[in-house]
């Protein structure tokens, strides 16, 4: 196993060693020390509104059940029978009073406690008294922020609010936009996979330099399409989004990249799609703004709608779009294999048409068959392939190094919107997690 000294040598101010993307042993250590410690986003409370509601997901590679218990609290349990190890639930979501192991019938309550063991006396004379210690393994810490569910596999660590720090504003940004003050997950889940390391997607989502290169083909193809015009059509959102990826360098340089504590960060917005960006000239938004103002007042509405963040990263498994109502959850499968689950949100109290636009947006930005996303996935795979080469040891992350600008508290802003400050910050956090034994 790698020692602290070796780990420290692999993360330099302007570069990291390629092993951080390609070494299977290092990946195993990451699962323990990064994914085994950090707060990981699991989903949203709207997925499990009633007692007995549940969904299954992963924390790193750990299969977990997220359930609403009878007392209203959310319990997160490892999906593994305490007897011989079978999963006790295979459904992606549903409603159950209890989870029954298919192998020998061990039966668990929605808080993971063991309720019933068939032929219990066969396990020994003290079987009944042992039951208390044979529940599903509970994930020790579960918290939610504005309805977003997080859990940590570690018993100790910062509270969720402290962990999120300035990133809480990204979640506020989405929820505050809902006239009724609530959002809900809706509209299906994309699950796109790639043959590459989990870090690649987190780096890419705040990378303001890549769109003009990775997405050149969809930019060019969309520029030849007819200009969006009234009446608005379904295709307009995709066309504008694809074209916007071809924004001039000056736009990307000016939008801003911020890095906060624990490896989190966000990118300023660069959008000019009046169907998506409230505050621009679109008739649906007049109605929407009216509803929001009625609830919170004009001044507060202006403030809420004035937030312009594109992607927010909550390291190590969350990529979030408040204004555009998208959540991506990153699940590492192997050192060179990752799956990203993507979710859309409905703003309660907003005009129905806004959700249709959210769906159209999700198709172009997160869709498994998207013109745009497929090129991102292809490039992740090419990076992974290149980083398997033994000829070069280092991955350079020095763009903007030395030019970071102090912002509020520990938050720093990149010298330009295309600074690699966010990647350096992610690796600083990575090293902190990995060095703690």
């Amino acid at each position, binding site marked *: 196993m790698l020692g602290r000294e070796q780990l420290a040598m692999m993360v330099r101010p302007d570069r990291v060693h390629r092993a951080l993307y390609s070494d299977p042993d290092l990946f195993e250590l990451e699962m323990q020390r990064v994914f085994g410690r950090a707060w990981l986003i699991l989903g949203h409370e709207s997925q499990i509104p009633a007692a007995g509601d549940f969904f299954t997901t992963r924390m790193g590679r750990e299969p977990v059940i997220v359930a609403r218990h009878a007392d209203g609290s959310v319990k997160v349990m490892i999906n593994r029978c305490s007897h011989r190890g079978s999963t006790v639930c295979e459904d992606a979501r549903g409603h159950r009073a209890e989870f029954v192991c298919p192998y020998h019938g061990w039966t668990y309550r929605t808080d993971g406690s063991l309720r019933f063991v068939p032929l219990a006396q066969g396990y020994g004379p003290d079987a009944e008294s042992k039951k208390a210690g044979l529940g599903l393994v509970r994930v020790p810490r579960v918290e939610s922020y504005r309805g977003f569910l997080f859990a940590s596999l570690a018993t100790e660590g910062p509270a969720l609010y402290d962990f999120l720090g300035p990133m809480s504003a990204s979640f506020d940004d989405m929820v505050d936009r809902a006239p009724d003050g609530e959002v809900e997950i809706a509209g299906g889940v994309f699950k796109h996979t790639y043959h590459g390391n989990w870090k690649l997607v987190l780096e890419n989502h705040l990378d303001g330099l890549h769109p003009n290169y990775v997405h050149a083909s969809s930019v060019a193809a969309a520029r*030849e399409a007819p200009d969006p015009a009234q009446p608005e059509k379904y295709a307009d959102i995709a066309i504008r989004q694809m074209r916007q990826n071809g924004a001039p360098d000056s736009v990307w340089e000016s939008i801003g990249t911020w890095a906060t504590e624990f490896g989190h960060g966000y990118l300023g917005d660069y959008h000019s799609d009046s169907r998506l960006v409230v505050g621009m000239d679109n008739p649906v938004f007049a109605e929407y703004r009216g509803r929001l103002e009625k609830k919170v007042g004009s001044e507060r509405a202006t403030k809420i709608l004035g937030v312009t963040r594109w992607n927010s990263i909550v390291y190590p498994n969350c990529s979030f779009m408040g204004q555009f109502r998208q959540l991506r959850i990153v699940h590492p499968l192997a050192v060179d294999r990752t799956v990203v689950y993507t979710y859309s949100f409905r703003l309660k109290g907003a005009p129905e048409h806004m959700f249709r636009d959210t769906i159209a947006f999700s198709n172009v930005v997160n869709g498994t068959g998207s013109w745009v996303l497929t090129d991102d996935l292809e490039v992740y795979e090419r990076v992974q392939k290149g980083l398997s080469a033994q000829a070069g040891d280092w991955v350079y992350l020095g763009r903007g190094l030395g030019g970071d600008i102090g912002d509020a508290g520990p938050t720093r802003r990149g010298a330009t919107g295309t600074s690699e400050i966010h990647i350096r910050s992610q690796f600083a956090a990575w090293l902190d997690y990995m060095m703690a034994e």
Partner: protein
Amino acid sequence: MPKHAPDPVSPREVEQFLYREASLLDHQQFEEWLGLYAEDATYWVPLERDQKDPWNTSSIIFDDRTLLEIRVRQYRDPRAHARLPVARTVHQVGNVALVQEAGNEVLVGSSLVLIEYRKERQRVFGALVEHRLRRTDDGFRIASKRVDIVNSEAELDGVAFLF
């Protein structure tokens, strides 16, 4: 053979049309393929089983004619990383059935087995397909196509080819 009144839609004609669509895709004649679609056509690969509509649930692909044209143009761009090289495919169309005729349109069900090969990886997809074909003076045009792949809800690598 006794003479019958001419059937407005012959099963054989429909089959031949679907085979032609498949062949154009398999020979990467995307522009000609696009020519089979009506100006108001939609091309839909739903994300969810039994998905009701493309408006309130995301789709693996949901394109109108404008977006399909972008897709075809992108194939020809020398910077289309996920499409270089273009995936080689075999579209095996079977179980063709005329479901319903209404006016100048016919609803056709079929099954599709698709083999996709690109960069040392081969994938197999199975799908139930529904075409709405419109009769024109120039033969059929596709008014809508819905492709329900059996693994639409599964974890999937990027889809940079056409079903």
